[in-house]
């Protein structure tokens, strides 16, 4: 019987090696997989490239991972926030590399990696600092920029409910990057609020089919 649930946060993040590229879900705190990030900090992998919309808030979650100096480079759309002091300091002292991608390009590049699209042309960013040095071309009368797929070794995401097959549903705006990151990583690890029986999730409403999910860490439910 297929069972993707894991018994502990340690088991969830086992095998993540130094130098990995790790997507971390969430938009601010909503959808941020706090337990998985804490487990990753404890696990010790370093020299990571992290893909997230932001660059950490306050001192917990992604910010704590940065503070532990495990992240060599961050790819995001909006690092600077009122409470991004951990990142800000690292950045100013040269302790982290930053790649800023317009938010829609970031999302689309992640989707492209999951969908087998090598690259795509988009009008977003044309004529700006963020497309400097990039290939451009006019398509249907609009100048567009070539952006490449952005895959990862691991995706750490948070969902609302899961079954043992890895099917996932999310909750409200905590959905954000979870469904696309799940498709773009070689190994997708989902922290979920509740584990339910197979068949309990509506086939019409499953957002992430189990094919995209490799490990499920339930906070509540059967496996806890």
């Amino acid at each position, binding site marked *: 019987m297929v069972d993707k649930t894991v018994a502990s946060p340690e088991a969830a993040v086992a095998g993540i090696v130094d130098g990995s590229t790790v997507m971390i879900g969430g938009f601010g705190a909503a959808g941020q997989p706090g337990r998985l990030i804490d487990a990753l900090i404890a696990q010790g992998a370093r020299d990571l490239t992290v893909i997230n919309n932001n660059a950490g808030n306050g001192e917990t979650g992604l910010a704590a991972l940065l503070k532990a100096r495990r992240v060599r480079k961050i790819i995001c759309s909006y690092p600077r926030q009122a409470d991004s002091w951990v990142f800000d300091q690292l950045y100013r002292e040269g302790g982290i590399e930053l790649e*800023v991608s317009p*938010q*829609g390009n970031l999302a689309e590049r992640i989707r492209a990696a999951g969908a087998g699209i090598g690259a795509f042309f988009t009008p977003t960013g044309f004529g*700006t600092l963020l497309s400097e040095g990039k290939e451009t071309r006019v398509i249907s009368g609009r100048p567009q920029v070539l952006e490449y797929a952005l895959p990862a070794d691991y995706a750490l995401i948070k969902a609302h409910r899961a079954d043992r097959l890895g099917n996932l549903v999310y909750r409200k705006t905590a959905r*954000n990057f979870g469904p696309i990151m799940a498709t773009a990583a070689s190994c997708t690890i989902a922290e979920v609020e509740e584990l339910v029986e197979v068949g309990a999730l509506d086939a019409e409403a499953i957002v992430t089919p189990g094919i995209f999910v490799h490990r499920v860490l339930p906070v509540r439910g059967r496996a806890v």
Partner: protein
Amino acid sequence: MKRLTRDQLAARVARDIPDGAYVNLGIGLPTLIGNHLPVDREIFLHSENGMLGMGPAPTPGQEDPDLINAGKRPVTLLPGGSFFHHADSFAMMRGGHLDICVLGAFQVSVRGDLANWHTGAPDAIPAVGGAMDLAIGARQVLVMMEHLTRQGQSKIVERCSYPVTALECVDRIYTDLAVIDVVPEGLQVREVIEGLSLEDLRRITGVPLLAP
């Protein structure tokens, strides 16, 4: 002459948003528009983190950390609203489906170039979010800003000195002094606040303005 207050400016923009419109209100000043939408119109607010049909802030104590807007503040969802993931949300923005977005700005050029994401200061940490996607994606891009910087310089400029967000994207500029359309011929004044003459507006703005 009495400049519009921020709330007066928000109400002025809100007046132009028609019934049935799908609208994204950018972070910062444009968020205020949400408080001034005419109650007799059904207007659908999009939030780029993944929501259509966004409602007002919840009553205190009813905040849900999983239900936030693009500014990461607690909000609500109206009946008929829906949630979707980030790629779908940005497809909505980039695919030309939003009728209107309203963005704040540092500068707008006479050609409608928009600068609203980066001051260009050498020590600034770049952070763009969804600004570039909204600027190229919405059918109508409206800018809402103060006409002058704190130093008294016009934010409507011949050419943006700050790094641009997108080129030739702005359709209309709402400021505390005037409403100005970006048209093929240049900048076309539509309204000037009471007590300010067109000549005064031209002098303050410092770039050619076509008469209403």
